[in-house]
């Protein structure tokens, strides 16, 4: 995944802060934010995850004119027959599934509205182990570097995904 242009916007920061239940005025109120040490609105620490909004190829967002794998007439769009000559939707559930196992951020500076980021992601290590509740687990790591409009590295993110053999037992 590479994102060419991820504009950091004040409205998006508000929506994100609300979603993670964070009432800190530094995310909502420019005047209040001026009185803080950073001196202006910043983004919450996990905000860069929403760069997915700006990734043209991101598979977990319905795309206009494309079939989606979530429920509609059927529990999954993946269960429905593909239209003639058409593709089945990507993704889908059933049996094993891909889950997020770890996420790590290193902050070189904090983000402000008006920043325009770009990111590049490189694959990292892969490993396997036998899980207690979900069968064989296949882990894969990726490292994403977020750079600002001046090409400066602002956040380094390391993500670990896991593909489980079956649904996690509760």
């Amino acid at each position, binding site marked *: 995944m590479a994102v060419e242009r991820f504009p950091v916007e004040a409205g*998006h920061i508000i*929506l*994100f802060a*609300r*979603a*993670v*239940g*964070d009432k*800190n005025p*530094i995310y909502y109120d420019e005047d209040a934010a001026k009185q*803080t*040490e*950073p001196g202006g609105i*910043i983004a*919450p*620490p*996990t905000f860069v*995850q*929403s*760069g*997915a*909004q700006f*990734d043209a190829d*991101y598979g*977990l*967002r*319905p795309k206009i004119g494309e079939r*989606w*794998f*979530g*429920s509609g007439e059927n*529990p*999954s769009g*993946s*269960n429905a027959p593909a239209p003639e000559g058409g593709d089945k939707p990507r*993704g*889908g*559930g*059933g*049996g094993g*599934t891909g*889950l*997020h*196992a*770890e*996420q*790590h*951020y*290193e*902050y070189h500076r*904090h983000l402000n509205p008006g920043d325009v980021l770009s990111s590049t992601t490189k694959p990292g290590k892969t490993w396997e182990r036998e899980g207690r509740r979900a069968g064989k687990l296949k882990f894969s790591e990726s490292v994403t570097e977020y750079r600002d409009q001046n090409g400066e590295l602002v956040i380094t993110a*390391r993500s670990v995904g896991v593909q489980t053999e079956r*649904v*996690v037992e*509760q």
Partner: protein
Amino acid sequence: MALKASDLSVGDTHEEVVVEDLSRTQIVQYAGASGDYNPLHTDEKFAVEAGGYPTAFAHGMLSMGLTGTMLTNYVGDGRLTKFGVRFSRQVFPGATLTAKSTVEAVREEDGEHFVDLTLSTTNQDGEEVVQGSATARIDA
């Protein structure tokens, strides 16, 4: 607002309830803000009938975001230098989560002061859902 090295000791803890009775609507709100519309999180019919889960469940990143709210309340605005987590257990609607940080080390590096924290977020049954670590710049 920011923490002071002189006030901190290894083993100090800070905890906050970061969500009570997590709603499916908040999970949808997170999907909308983050852009992760995976129907395992937002589509009960898909999660149960196609995914095989007992119900739709929260994004791991929502648990991390909620944990981050406790963390930035504690260390102050713009002070985090590192924040990492491992998702140990899924979080389902109805969850009440408590995020806790424990001081692991207070140290000085190139004239700047830092605190290293371990993090643990637990659900209403006392099960750990997120474990992690963080580092923040602090005052002397």
